[in-house]
């Protein structure tokens, strides 16, 4: 049984690393190609503007010229200052995280309500010493990954590029290890007959932790795409690291969700 668990862990963790690494690098290359096409089109429109403006079809009804349109025609782009003084991209990320809060709240409240009503038959399987030890290790790993994510951000903001890469790779490995250990836990429960389709406990537990695990996997893919873009194109510098900061916000949110799940599902 122990050998089997070890093999499952290695298989899942290695599989996650390979799959997410490959997907992340593919994404990085796609971003590179898309960015290159946008840059080329910007150059072309700027050249056209310099030659005497873009050709536009005259409107059917004569309208007064719009300042934004005039700026677009003359300069090829327009900058609209944000009204709250916030970075729009970061603001959008926080809005997304707000929606994720509501999503996970629904799952967690459902699990908690079923537990209070005594409908989660089999929940005691989570409280045996072996399972708890595994989850405690997993929680420590995810907390450590939060530390490495913010250390990577600190490194890039201070211009320490080698440390930036090092902390990112450590984070990716920790994320994959987390998924591997989650896979071991799931397999243990499967072997005990607890399945998503067999009981309310199975459904609520596997859906909640499954969605969280999916978020971790997406985070690891995103991280590998960041590593790829940083390596291939020199992106994410001391002057320009907002993209990595946004990833950090996402990863810390995933960690917060696990902090709550750990308490609600495993400790209470």
């Amino acid at each position: 049984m122990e050998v089997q668990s070890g093999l499952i862990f290695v298989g899942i963790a290695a599989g996650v690393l390979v799959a997410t690494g490959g997907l992340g690098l593919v994404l990085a290359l796609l971003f590179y190609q898309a960015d290159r096409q946008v840059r080329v089109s910007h150059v072309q429109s700027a050249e056209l503007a310099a030659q005497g403006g873009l050709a536009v079809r005259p409107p059917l009804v004569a309208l007064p010229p719009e300042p934004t349109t005039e700026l677009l025609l003359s300069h090829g782009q327009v900058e609209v200052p944000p009204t709250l003084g916030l970075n729009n991209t970061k603001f959008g990320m926080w809005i997304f995280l707000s929606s994720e809060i509501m999503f996970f709240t629904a799952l967690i409240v459902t699990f908690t309500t079923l537990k209070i009503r005594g409908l989660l038959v089999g929940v005691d399987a989570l409280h045996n010493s072996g399972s708890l030890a595994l989850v405690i290790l997993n929680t420590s790993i995810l907390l450590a990954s939060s530390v490495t994510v913010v250390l990577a951000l600190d490194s890039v903001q201070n211009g320490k590029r080698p440390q930036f890469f090092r902390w990112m790779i450590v984070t990716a490995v920790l994320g994959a290890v987390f998924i591997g250990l989650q896979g071991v836990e799931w397999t243990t429960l499967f072997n005990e007959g607890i399945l998503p389709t067999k009981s309310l406990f199975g459904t609520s537990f596997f859906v909640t932790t499954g969605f969280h695990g999916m978020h971790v996997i997406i985070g690891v893919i995103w991280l590998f795409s960041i590593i790829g873009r940083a390596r291939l194109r020199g992106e994410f510098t001391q002057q320009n690291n907002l993209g990595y900061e946004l990833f950090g916000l996402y990863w810390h949110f995933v960690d917060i969700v696990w902090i709550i799940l750990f308490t609600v599902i495993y400790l209470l």
Partner: protein
Amino acid sequence: MEQAQNASAHPHKGPNYLAVGGVLLALTAIEILITLFVHDFDIRIPLFILMLAKVTLVAMFYMHLRSDSKWYTAFFLAPIPFILLLIGAMMLRTIPQLPK
């Protein structure tokens, strides 16, 4: 232009992230000890408080809500009324069915 706003001309000095990480691990250890060894009284409230403390530390120091614009904090906390509404509704359905 937006990303240029993120530029820093001098080294960035953030909080002591390792110290915060140490506190998070310590709080987790306390949670586990309470769960394993405290049986005489209701552990739900101390566990809930510890959980909130950990969430607050991650949000304030790792997500930089403490040093960023308060609008980000506002949008992070905006779902809370809906959360309380949902919890309240579920509790209203649940409490009458608890065993007496």
